[in-house]
């Protein structure tokens, strides 16, 4: 059924198609991934047809054997016939094996290709997208949805092609035998079509709803595992279980709703086919009695019609498959169609790391989240001189973290611009920019890999010396005491390490890159005073000829900086040396003066 309908929607690709059409459009767009396999697929489809023929070729031989040698009592000729059946049978089995083997191999390859492409696309999408999308929803697309598409291409579609072929052939034969009865059979296609159309209309949204919800369930499971300590620390296991149960119940209900829609149409398919058979039998019998049809022809007609039963009954299942593949394709293209907000401009330039002086200038930089009319940054003007270390101080919520996400374009300003050595950073190639500007966040994201892999994240070619040097600077030499040294796997998000250890590793990771501009978001917050002092001493050396932008919360960290900028209500309220600001800016004093006196006051 699907094959003809798949061919049309090309034209609606650009102008916003209606939702129902777009489902088909998106499935059709998958053809891009079939293209590399087109010859194999062509071969495969011809093998499917050959396999049908090989399967159909055996019964006539068997029939001829009964009518011929067996009736004649010729054992020798029977052996010849049997040999032919055996030969055809072997060919049929072999064809079947080969085509199934190819079918599954090709389908798996296509699935893997789409998955890799989807992964690549997700990597390019900006952090704003990832903040909004639950991991479980993305995961469902990468696994379950692609699985559905694969199953359709490997199963449903092939079945649809072969049964369409079969139905056409049989209908032709029926027309040849008795056209009036054949029209009766053909007329039964009308209710089938109507029911099928209704099915499409109802099933598509129901399937979509179910698939969406299964992403929610996966998200809930993932979140409860990631937050297990927070949950256990508060004893909220039962609450989380209740919430999960609600999500799972919703999934169950949506699944049942979908199946109820299926139950209403599928059941009708078989019944209509049986009813048509009844009509033909009754009408045919009357015609035989009238003498306008021979018994042999009626028998042949009905035998053929019986062969139609199964493809018609199964078409419900095929349609459901097709529907699910369409929604799955839709969901996959939800992601593919999201353009990365942060990407290379046409003609973006490449700068040579060695020639970068490292002057960083913020010009009237503004930033607001897309769902928030109030801006976080309201015109930041700031100049970081080459080789200078500038600290950013400010109260919670003043926009420090947002500000430091801009120079490496993890976010783009909504107004104003940022210049690196006089060039707008948006005119540089993204990968190039990020090799020049490196950012380390307060939260050290460590991956479940070896320490070495984690350290070399930003510079895969770093040699042992670079790594050891970075570890020394970050006072992270504790890694040598881990069971397998640099080869030790550190757990999920480095959980088996303490906060301070993780932070030092993250710092070492940034140091390994040796960027021209180093951006650090409160890099020492989890360190004790003693370690902090050691790290600062070692960092000073690194920062000597690196431009650095550092978010600070503590006066002790300020010691690293040549100058400090105070961020207040989205603007730079003051810039200067720490000692100057301590005198000139009461706001600064409030933000950075030692806490102890206030507490005891």
């Amino acid at each position: 059924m699907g094959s003809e309908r798949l061919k049309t929607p090309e034209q609606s690709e650009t102008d916003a198609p209606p939702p129902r059409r777009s489902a088909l459009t998106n499935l059709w767009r998958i053809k891009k991934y079939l293209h590399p396999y087109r010859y194999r697929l062509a071969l495969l489809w011809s093998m499917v047809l050959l396999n049908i023929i090989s399967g159909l070729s055996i019964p006539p031989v068997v029939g001829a054997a009964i009518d011929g040698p067996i009736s004649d009592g010729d054992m020798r000729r029977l052996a010849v016939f049997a040999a032919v059946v055996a030969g055809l049978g072997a060919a049929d089995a072999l064809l079947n094996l080969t085509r199934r083997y190819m079918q599954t191999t090709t389908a798996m390859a296509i699935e893997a290709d789409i998955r890799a492409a989807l992964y690549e696309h997700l990597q390019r999408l900006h952090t704003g997208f990832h903040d909004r999308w639950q991991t479980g929803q993305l995961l469902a697309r990468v696994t379950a949805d692609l699985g559905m598409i694969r199953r359709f291409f490997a199963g449903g579609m092939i079945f649809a092609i072969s049964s369409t072929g079969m139905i056409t052939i049989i209908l032709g034969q029926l027309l040849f035998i008795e056209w009036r009865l054949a029209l009766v059979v053909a007329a039964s296609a009308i209710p089938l079509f109507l029911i099928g159309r209704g099915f499409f209309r109802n099933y598509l949204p129901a399937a979509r709803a179910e698939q969406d919800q299964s992403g929610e369930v996966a998200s809930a499971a993932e979140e409860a595992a990631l937050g297990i300590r927070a949950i256990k620390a508060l004893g909220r296991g039962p609450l989380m279980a209740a919430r999960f149960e609600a999500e799972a119940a919703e999934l169950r209900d949506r699944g049942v709703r979908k199946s109820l829609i299926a139950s209403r149409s599928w059941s009708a398919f078989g019944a209509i086919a049986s009813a048509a058979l009844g009509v033909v039998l009754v009408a045919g019998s009357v015609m035989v009695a009238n003498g306008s049809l021979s018994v042999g022809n009626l028998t042949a007609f009905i035998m053929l019609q019986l062969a139609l039963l199964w493809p018609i009954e199964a078409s419900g299942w095929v349609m459901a498959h097709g529907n699910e593949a369409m929604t799955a394709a839709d969901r996959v293209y939800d992601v593919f169609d999201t353009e990365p907000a942060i990407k290379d401009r046409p003609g973006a330039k490449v700068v040579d790391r060695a020639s970068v002086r490292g002057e960083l200038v913020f010009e009237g930089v503004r930033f607001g989240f897309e769902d928030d009319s109030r801006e976080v940054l309201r015109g930041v003007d700031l100049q970081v001189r080459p080789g200078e270390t500038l600290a950013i101080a400010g109260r919670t919520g003043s926009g420090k973290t947002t500000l430091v996400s801009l120079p490496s374009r993890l976010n783009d300003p909504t107004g104003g611009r940022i210049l690196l050595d006089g060039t707008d950073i948006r005119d540089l190639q993204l990968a190039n920019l990020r090799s020049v500007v490196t950012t380390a966040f307060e939260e050290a994201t460590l991956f479940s890999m070896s320490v070495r892999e984690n350290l070399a994240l930003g510079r895969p070619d770093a040699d042992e010396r670079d790594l050891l040097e970075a570890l020394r600077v970050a006072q992270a030499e504790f890694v040598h005491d881990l069971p397998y040294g640099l080869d030790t796997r550190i757990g999920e998000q480095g959980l088996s390490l303490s906060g301070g250890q993780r932070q030092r590793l993250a710092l070492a990771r940034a140091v390994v890159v040796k960027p021209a501009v180093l951006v650090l978001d409160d890099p020492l917050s989890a360190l004790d005073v003693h370690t902090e002092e050691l790290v600062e001493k070692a960092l000073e050396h690194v920062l000597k000829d690196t431009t650095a932008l550092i978010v600070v919360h503590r006066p002790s960290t300020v010691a690293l900086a040549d100058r400090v900028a105070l961020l207040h209500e989205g603007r730079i309220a003051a810039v200067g040396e720490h000692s100057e600001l301590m005198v000139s800016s009461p706001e600064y004093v409030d933000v950075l003066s030692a806490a102890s006196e206030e507490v005891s006051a």
Partner: protein
Amino acid sequence: MTATDKHASWRGRAESAEADRTSAELDDAESIKELRTQSRRLLGSMMRPHKRAIGFLVGILVVQNFVTMATPILVMYGIDHGIPAISERGDYSVIGWIGVSFALVAILEYLCVRLYIAQSAKVSAAMLFNLRNRVFKKFQRLSVSFHERFTSGRVTARQSSDMEAIREMTENGVDDLVLAALNVVTITVVMLVIDARLAAVSLLTFPLMLLLGRWFNRVSTLAYRRARETVALLIVYFVESMGGVRAVQAYRREERDRELFAGLNTDNRFAQAAGHQQNAFMSGGMRGIGHLATVVVLLFGGWQVMQGNTELGVLAAFLLYMKRFFDPLNELVQFYNVLQSATSALEKISGVLDEEIEVAEPESPRRIERPRGELHFDGVRFQYREDQVVLPGLDLLVPGGQTIALVGSTGAGKTTIAKLVSRFYDPKAGALRLDGVDLRELSEADLRSGVVMITQENFLFNGTIAENIELGRPGASRERVVEAAKVVGAHEFIEALPEGYDTHVRKRGGRLSAGQRQLVVFARAFLADPKVLILDEATSSLDIPSERLVQRALRTILADRTAIIIAHRLSTVEIADRVLVLEHGRIIEDGHPNDLIDHGGEYATLHRQWEDSLV
């Protein structure tokens, strides 16, 4: 053998090869057998509550089976009797009755199919719903150390792709299985009745089928298991690299990441394909056996006919029956794929459900009559790894209401103490008591309402700020949520957000800065109002004005509470009644902060360093 082998080193070495696995990953013959039993038991326990519904479903299928069988009989009857009645006697009643019967068949078929799909969907959905909840609860009860090696990706894999595999089995194809079985039995019986000798010969190929089935079962079990494992690894990697996508982008790790993901993707592709390819052999083999059976029947039956031992009609019927015997079986081979996938998934899940809980809930919990918040460490010994003792034997009594601060270098055991009090782990020796009751004897609910820990982890859940604070006390009114936020000084920044307390924090709180998240977590803990509060580096991300507010709040909050504070910033330590300096898991100094400063020991040194750092 796998595409990732050449990159295998990236993963690094773990404590043991099995560190991140449950028992479901073992693949020696003995374990496989046991796993099979385990998963069968699990399937049994899933089906048991739906026994009657399943019986009903089988009933529908049996009826449907007979209804479908009626069709050829009606056709035969119509041709043999209906037509002669009309042509010979002009009697339309026979054909009329046949027409009516056909209408009945159509209606019955409609009802059976409709009822079957609807009912089986309900049963299947209910079974999965229960299983999902069971698995979720089990994961919640498993210890923190289990989760640390198992990873959230695997948890997600169990709840998504494994459940999906089971759903495919329960939702589709079971009817085919039952109908095919009914069909095989019916036809065997019919054939035996018609001609026992010919039937015996035609069933000669049956052992071949069994052999083929056994072969497939054996080889594909491993293949499908491996497929489930590779998909889990893929999910683990996906979840983690997407969770840390900010770091990936900032460090331009995309390419390397893609390379590693591609390796896992390819592994999974081949592992999945392996099972299906073996299934292709099974499918071709079954067809071949079917054709072989035809040849055998043709030759032997033909010879019998020539000998006059049997009728030509019988042979024709036999040949038709052979086809009807094998056709559904060929369809069924497809379902075998689904079945094997689901079995492997069931094994994985049963592995989780059978995982021993290291930190188990007591069978008969004891209650604390009047909570005072007294903590007693009685010779507590603890180590994460055999060769590295963290706490050699800690003796410590913290009277109810006292605020103690733990000070010491990294690895001194501060966080371990905090984790023991929160019962993330149990002591290897000795006991830890809250108001005289061993933590191991305390019910989970009592323990959690008594002890709350705040760490620097600052985990925020998907939802609004208010919902995240409310987690401290589910059902708390908005007023109390706001009040808690005010106390810890979070109110101001929350109000400044576009939708205030109803602002969505986005995934993992991505909307907020680390300091803001910490304040939300503080408000959450304040709302929880526990008897014992543990602050493990809970203020490290705060800026000084916020910390000042939190300090002030803490003085009130901790007034009537037992508290354990771990902090690098001694500003937080100063509010403690008592400071413990730890070294290698032993207490080397113990006293009031001012006394310790006067005393001139380790703490005095630390304090001086800290004062210097304040500039």
